[in-house]
């Protein structure tokens, strides 16, 4: 009887550990949200979205330039990275054999694991050093390096889910292979491809480290790709470590805006574009080595 009681006790403690660790995981998430709502929501106002920053010392002003700058650079970065990522993903899933494919796969693997700050250094060495100034272009390039491997990976995994007989049916009709790929394989999985793209973009929108010394940040609204440009995350960082109360308040408002944008995109991609099974497949494959499936 004593043994059974011991086993039951162990089981009970195990349940206790399971439940408490789940609470431990959820707690910080809730706390972050509560504090953001409290602090950020309270300091949000229409002015925040419509004004550029005022000079140091004056209260008021907003982050219009940073929000626009973020959209500008993420847009520019994805303009390059999304098509390139899709092409690379298609290449890997449809023709993925040989030296080039293997080295591409290795490259993508490598890029997925690179810390974002190192991506910033990459872009710094290529753009900022040659142009001798911080620029929005360098920031966009850094973001595109963040986006590219994610999109390639997800595209490859999604396209692999299309059963072979579907492709063969297309080929048997006498279509050239590129038409089969474009109009059957890609078109058939466009909603899940969209999910992958949006998830990648939402990831890039929240990145700070690659922008710190590429786009650098500025206090003015600018649309020129060769000048420094503000972005929401960098602006939050600069304000958060500043000694001014008003700026810290704005950092909270900025963080609130940022998280609404990022989580909004994330949830939107999750629930509006695709069924769950496909989403799960994408997500799991992000962490896994590619396996040759036959």
């Amino acid at each position: 009887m004593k043994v059974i009681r011991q086993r039951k006790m162990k089981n009970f403690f195990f349940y206790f550990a399971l439940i408490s660790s789940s609470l431990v995981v959820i707690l910080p998430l809730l706390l972050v949200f509560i504090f953001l709502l409290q602090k950020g929501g309270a300091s949000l106002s229409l002015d925040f979205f419509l004004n550029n920053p005022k000079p140091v010392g004056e209260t008021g002003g907003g982050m219009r330039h940073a929000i626009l700058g973020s959209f500008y650079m993420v847009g520019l970065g994805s303009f390059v990275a999304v098509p390139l990522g899709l092409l690379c993903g298609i290449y890997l899933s449809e023709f993925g054999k040989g030296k080039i494919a293997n080295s591409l796969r290795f490259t993508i693997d490598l890029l997925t694991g690179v810390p974002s700050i190192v991506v910033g250094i990459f872009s710094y060495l290529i753009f900022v050093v040659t142009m001798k100034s911080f620029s929005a272009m360098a920031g966009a390039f850094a973001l595109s390096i963040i986006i590219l491997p994610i999109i390639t990976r997800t595209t490859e995994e999604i396209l692999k889910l299309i059963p072979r007989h579907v492709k063969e049916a297309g080929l048997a009709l006498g279509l050239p292979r590129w038409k089969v790929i474009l109009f059957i394989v890609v078109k058939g999985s466009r909603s899940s491809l969209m999910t992958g793209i949006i998830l990648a973009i939402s990831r890039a929108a929240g990145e700070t480290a690659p922008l710190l010394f590429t786009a650098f940040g500025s206090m003015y609204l600018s649309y020129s790709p060769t000048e420094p440009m503000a972005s929401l995350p960098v602006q939050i960082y600069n304000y958060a470590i500043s000694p001014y109360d008003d700026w810290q308040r704005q950092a909270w408002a900025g963080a609130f805006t940022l998280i609404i944008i990022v989580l909004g995109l994330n949830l939107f991609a999750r629930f509006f574009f695709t069924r769950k099974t496909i989403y799960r497949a994408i997500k799991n494959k992000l962490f896994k080595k590619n396996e040759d499936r036959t």
Partner: protein
Amino acid sequence: MKISYSKQDRYVYTGLRFFSLVVVCLLIAIIFQLFKASKLAFDEFGLSFVLSDFWNPVEDEFGALAFIYGTVITSLLSLLLAGPVSIFVAIFINEFLPKKLASILGVFVELIAAIPSIVFGLWGLYYLAPFVKNYISPFLKKYLGFIPLFQGTSFGIGILTASLILAIMIIPTITSVCREVFRSIPNLRKEAALGLGATKYEMVKLAIINPSFSGIMGALVLGLGRALGETMAVAMVIGNNPVISTSLFSSGATMASVMANEYAEADSELHLSALCYIGLLLFVVTFIVNLFARTIVWNNSRKSRS
């Protein structure tokens, strides 16, 4: 003129190959640039760079040991905190919760991964740091103060706070890989364990944890890779003070945080080069760690499939 189908296909194929080559060449160029940029510091300090903890931009003397120490200790500590929790959560989601609740908790965990690190940094700076200062450190000092790790005064900002933030941030990575590993175990084995009269705990231990041990290791190493490279959240709460101290309450600096702090302001060539050198080290280390983790997870999933 009509182009034959086989030719069209060849063009498309060549085009795709071309773009792939562009990406590969880009990476090679980047790595080459990184080596070139860190060459100056390498020539100046050689390998003693990683053995010296003297970092003084004013006198152009650089050694990275303090940063390496900071990176290693924060990553390991966060892994220690996050590892068990993530494994428990993965088991809870996969094996215990009913389907609906499981997917809700799963989404919650994934949302943590979606929160930008700057937001965690902000939260850490204004809420977690005071909390650590006022509650966690006095508590640790009172009960574990005899260990050197928990001695000294706490200002809230420091290694302990950074590790806590990091732990929160790597939980989703470890959890999702663990869930994937656990999912590959056939139901038959779990049922066999339960059928023999095992309690749920014994079933989990015998049929889930033991056979997927290497997979769990892989998940932990992947989490480690993520922790090593995490920048903003750590840079905001660690204090950025390149000292090596035995106390977890003291401030410190990591390889990523020093780059974030000093790169834009570095004006001497040697300083920039030294930062690039650190970047190169970080790049190589995370690459090796990730490769190692992937190999483990990959081997594990292949083994369980066959």
